[in-house]
């Protein structure tokens, strides 16, 4: 991923940043160790269980979240980059009740040591790897911004 993608927030890229009061190493573990991940992955009231968490490039991951009403929904993907304790990148999609994966995106998490803990940057790019990312490079963000503005009139 190029640096400008990391830095930019646009209509097409979700970017969130947090200062977390924990050093990068243990924080990284909260993402790749099943027993740690289930502590925070699922929304309030839901119970997360890890079906797969093979934290290495090309390794698969899948987490099921069970709602209080018994319904469940899963997220899954493939790890692209596992570079402890600096960077984690994986594909991401919600699955429907039949286990069919929805639109796939790529999530990148950057861990930077900072005073008081770790500066965590989470970037979710909306495009899967079916050629769409090429479209993302040139002017896509700008044109989508214009589109959204025009559509909102």
């Amino acid at each position: 991923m190029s640096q400008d993608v990391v830095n930019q927030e646009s209509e097409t890229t979700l970017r969130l940043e947090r200062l977390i009061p924990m050093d990068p190493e243990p924080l990284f573990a909260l993402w790749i160790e099943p027993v740690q991940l289930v502590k925070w992955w699922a929304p309030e009231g839901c119970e997360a269980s890890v079906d797969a968490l093979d934290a290495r490039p090309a390794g698969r991951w899948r987490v099921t979240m069970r709602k209080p009403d018994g319904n469940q929904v899963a997220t899954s993907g493939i790890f692209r980059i596992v570079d402890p304790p600096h960077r984690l990148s994986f594909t991401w999609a919600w699955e429907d009740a039949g286990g069919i994966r929805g639109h796939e995106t790529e999530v990148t998490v950057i861990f930077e040591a900072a005073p008081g803990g770790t500066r965590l940057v989470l970037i979710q790019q909306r495009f899967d790897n079916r050629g769409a990312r090429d479209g993302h490079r040139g002017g896509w963000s700008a044109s989508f911004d214009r589109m959204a503005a025009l559509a909102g009139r």
Partner: protein
Amino acid sequence: MATPQAPRLDGVFAALADPTRRKIVERLLAAGELSVGDVAAPFAISTQAISRHLQVLERAGLIERRVERQWRYVRMRGDALEPVESWLSRQRRYWTAALDRLETTAAEQTPKRRKS
């Protein structure tokens, strides 16, 4: 909790991933409605190729067509970009809440630091 997206989203993203189709969409958003000939005019590609692009946009639910006598017109559908926008806001809600929980978990596991 975010729910799985409607299948339509994939079609919308795929349709908008092509630069020519994005230009067509921008022109339609700016102009309202255009004849197929007017859509094709600024592009140095065949009318046939434009037709194929319009088909993709129509199948994705982004545009609609209207025929008036021998003229064919296209315009954006009013709800064209809604799936994209609602999908993004669901993702944002999910990750914002997940990072809240991550922060809480981290704080619980970290012994209080001494200011040095």
